[in-house]
């Protein structure tokens, strides 16, 4: 219907509406960026202060009043909020922890999902359809089901406050979707390849490792992105299974930071921005792939 792209009154109206929605979508982020560069005196109205928080006096020794500036661009760009959030907030550490946990969970999910998918699509045995249905139960099971039992198991095994405490549960809860996506991709690989590899002397492991796995690269991207987004923002497990700052992931770390700066909006905004910007950069680079990951998950579910 591309011929309908003439500029009619109704298309203009639609564009105006969409642009209003875009503004609503972007405003909170714009606002976050602006208050991350201000201090409370500028946000709420008060007196001009330097970076150390001491009032700046004019030539008569009087404090200089500043007008409330809640949503405008900062008058003084206080970049010092950023090192404040980074240093007191330990954001670098949390960031690294999130990276370690997510990457490990992705690796485990991929290996387990590909292997199980191989067994259920390329190997011949009774009950493989049943097994597939069994794994699909995981799409509906809420993570609350695992909360208390896994907490008790981890505590008994002295695994609370470790990376493992998050990696294994994250991998397990991403598994069903991983298998669901992998089955679609693996089904598209021609079965002749298995037979040819078999005639060349490969066993099942050889076929899996040398023929199937290398052809699963597109699935790796989709499953990987899906699992990454599940782990990166997860809060409930991360709050309960880890309480030491050394192993905290980004969401819990950021949450923790609010306790230290309850009323100081500048450093809070800076911490929020530090946690948001990397995700936004990744999204800008990979938006189509990321969207495809979400669509694949939902359409097949």
């Amino acid at each position, binding site marked *: 219907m591309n011929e309908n792209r003439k500029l009619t009154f109704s298309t203009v109206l639609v564009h105006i509406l969409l642009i209003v929605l875009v503004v609503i979508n972007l405003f909170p982020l714009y606002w976050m960026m602006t208050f991350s560069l201000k201090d409370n005196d500028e946000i709420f109205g008060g007196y001009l202060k330097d970076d150390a928080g001491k009032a700046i006096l004019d030539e008569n020794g009087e404090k200089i009043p500043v007008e409330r500036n809640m949503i405008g661009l900062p008058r003084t760009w206080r970049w010092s909020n950023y090192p404040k959030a980074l240093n007191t907030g330990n954001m670098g550490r949390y960031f690294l922890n999130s990276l370690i946990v997510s990457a490990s969970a992705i690796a485990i999910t991929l290996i387990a999902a590909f292997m199980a998918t191989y067994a259920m699509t390329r190997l011949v045995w009774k009950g493989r359809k049943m097994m597939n249905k069994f794994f699909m139960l995981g799409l509906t099971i809420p993570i609350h089901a695992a909360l208390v039992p896994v*907490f008790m198991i981890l505590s008994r095994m002295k695994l609370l406050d470790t990376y493992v405490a998050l990696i294994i549960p994250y991998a397990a809860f991403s598994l069903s979707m991983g298998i669901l996506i992998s089955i679609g991709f693996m089904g598209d690989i021609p079965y002749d390849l298995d037979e040819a590899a078999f005639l060349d002397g490969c066993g099942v492991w050889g076929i899996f490792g040398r023929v199937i796995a290398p052809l699963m690269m597109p699935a790796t991207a989709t499953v990987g992105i899906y699992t990454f987004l599940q782990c990166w923002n997860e809060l409930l497990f991360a709050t309960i299974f880890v309480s030491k700052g050394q192993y905290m992931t980004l*969401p819990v770390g950021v949450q923790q930071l609010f306790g230290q700066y309850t009323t100081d909006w500048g450093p809070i905004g800076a911490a929020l921005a530090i*946690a948001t910007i990397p995700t936004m950069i990744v999204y800008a680079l990979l938006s189509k792939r990321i969207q495809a990951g979400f669509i694949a998950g939902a359409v097949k579910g």
Partner: protein
Amino acid sequence: MKRTFTYKLSIVAFLLPALILFIGILIAPIIMSVIYSLNDFKAISGSDMTYVGFRNFIELFSPELVNEKGALYANVNYMGDALLNSLLLAALSTFIQLPLALIIALKLSKGIRGERIYLSIFFMPVLISTVIIGRLWMNIYETNGLLNAALDALGIKQQVFSWVSSKITSTKMPFQGGWTGYKETALLAAFVPILWQYVGYHMLLMYAGIKGVPADLLEAAQLDGCTEGQVNRHIIIPYIKPILKVCVIFAVTGSLKSFDLIYTLMKDTRRAELPSTLMYKLTFLNNRYGLGSAIAVVLIVLCFAFAMLISLAFRDKGEKVS
């Protein structure tokens, strides 16, 4: 050759990592949760576990949800409140969020200039951590936050405040401006960021579905002189029914499970208690592991029940449920 592909040991070996993860972290814990929900215990090792039958469930839904120091939440049906709140959230999501997503997806998918850019921007909030969104909205709803500043700038702050005060019955205090601090306003306040974050998600799914409608179907309808509204109603919406079903299931089960936003948005989650926040408090702040497990069991049952009910509701006449 046949023997290689049917060799039992290699089948088991390929399935083993997935089975260990899946049974160890998902299936066994469900069974354990059911067992725990029938017991009362306060030690994390479970050494003081005593069988109490269904007493946890009764206690959960009884007006005296108590700890041994006396009433924890006296005379309030908190699990009932929490369930009601989550169902209200589910209804708001289904009847406000999804139609909004569908309208925009229908408009976007028909060759609007820059549709990909619009779509990418609308989807973006999905990727932001709920912790961040919760904190941003906290700054909006605070007494001296953005919302009240905006009302002030418009000169209607006093009128709005006294109007809200007249609607508040849970406390005698007049409305002071903290939008998440009152039972009457907290849940709606929490719904706005949820709407903001997830409307793009549903929109993306619906958009992808609409793009999958065969072009000749649409052309035939146009040749027959169908209006845009008729095409939407009689061709596109029936065609994307499977996706709409998934969206409704996600919206409803997502509301039942919802935790992150309320937990980060509010200092006191009691104003908009949800099953998850209640479970978190009872289990990990009061060490009532049996009671917490009972909430988990209720949630598991409800998630499966709603998923099935919604599938049934979306079933075409004469189609078998698989």
